[in-house]
């Protein structure tokens, strides 16, 4: 067995969807080239962009930071990183340290912002209050609020997230199966925000399978946090992830075709379902919002009520 590109004997991956076998050097190059090509082709980043990576310290964000660093070194973009501390005991601390190390090594600006300092609630406290929604719902909304605000304050023109092909396929299926067409129209390689106060978000790893991101991190010897979030286990996303992984065994192109098909119907979907809401500013925090209260503030009020009720019940 030889590398299909350079004939080297030691191969580290066989791509079932294309039949390609690659050695370590050719694999690393193929990922870097593919990501940079997708960025160019879809105009995700332009020269002079100030790019903020949402850097969790996990394999996906570490990979995207590593690849974007080549644009930073060539002075095509400015690069910075934002890490969110959700407040998950025994899980987050190691990842935050890894994120800080990477930012330091590249010599880029890095801000670590916690749920606690923004909302006076950690995710652990939110989940201990026995709330009505799942952890991923709270976490997603609060995280997006912080990332957008922090990126704007840092002067970023783009926010980069590490979403990979598996994540994107799961999102498409989840929203389709739940009939959540509004959310479906927002899935894509970049956002088109309705307000200048929303920074454009891009997903350069959107066409890279999760497993290949993992191989990339190990092949490049990049330090990354591999542990799973203790709250993600029972989510609907985890169930969908399992179904897609099972399907992929006998149908190795299934994630690619799901994404391709979706990107085609999305054009029609957006025409039919342009939400056309007016964005105003949240009366509590001032961030852009479709309702009087933004979702982050709405959730925080909901949880505070829960905590009060729990205290009351405990006392009487």
């Amino acid at each position, binding site marked *: *067995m030889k590398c299909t590109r350079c004939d080297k004997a*030691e*191969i*580290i*991956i*066989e791509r079932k969807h294309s039949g390609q*076998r690659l050695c*370590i050097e050719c694999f690393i190059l193929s990922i870097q080239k593919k990501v940079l090509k997708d960025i160019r082709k879809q105009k995700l980043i332009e020269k002079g962009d100030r790019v903020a990576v949402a850097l969790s310290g996990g*394999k996906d964000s570490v990979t995207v930071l590593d690849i974007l660093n080549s644009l930073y070194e060539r002075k095509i973009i400015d690069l910075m990183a934002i890490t969110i501390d959700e407040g998950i005991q025994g899980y987050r601390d190691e990842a935050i340290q890894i994120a800080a190390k990477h930012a330091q090594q590249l010599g880029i600006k890095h801000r670590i912002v916690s749920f606690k300092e923004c909302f006076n609630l950690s995710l652990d406290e939110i989940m201990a209050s026995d709330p009505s929604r799942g952890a991923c719902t709270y976490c997603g909304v609060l995280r997006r609020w912080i990332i957008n605000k922090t990126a704007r304050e840092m002067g970023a023109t783009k926010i980069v997230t590490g979403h990979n092909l*598996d994540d994107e396929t799961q999102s498409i299926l989840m929203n389709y199966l739940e009939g959540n067409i509004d959310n479906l129209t927002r899935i894509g390689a970049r956002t088109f925000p309705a307000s200048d106060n929303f920074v454009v978000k891009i997903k350069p790893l959107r066409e890279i399978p*999760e*497993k290949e*991101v*993992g*191989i990339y*991190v*190990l*092949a490049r010897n990049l330090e990354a946090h*591999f*542990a*799973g*979030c203790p709250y*993600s*286990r029972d*989510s609907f*996303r*985890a*169930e*969908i*992830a*399992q179904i897609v*992984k099972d399907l*992929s*065994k006998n149908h190795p192109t299934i994630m690619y075709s799901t994404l391709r098909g979706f990107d085609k119907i999305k054009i029609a979907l957006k025409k039919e379902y342009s939400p056309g809401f007016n964005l105003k500013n949240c009366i509590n925090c001032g961030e852009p919002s479709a309702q009087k209260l933004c979702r982050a503030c709405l959730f925080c009020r909901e949880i505070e009520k829960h905590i009060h009720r729990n205290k009351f019940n405990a006392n009487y």
Partner: protein
Amino acid sequence: MQFTLINGEKKETKPLKKNLTIKKLLDEIETPLETVVVKKNGEIVIEEEIIQDEDIIEVIHIIYGG
């Protein structure tokens, strides 16, 4: 004939059967191939790789939660 298996935190020495591939090993330890990357003596290898006497096999879990 034996090999060392490092799986997450666990490290053990196992007897080596003839023509044991990474794929067969993962089946035996009930670890789905699509959630791990395997290193043989420090180098990433593919699932068809055959384990040799005294090899050190490291199973690195890269995907969690489904």
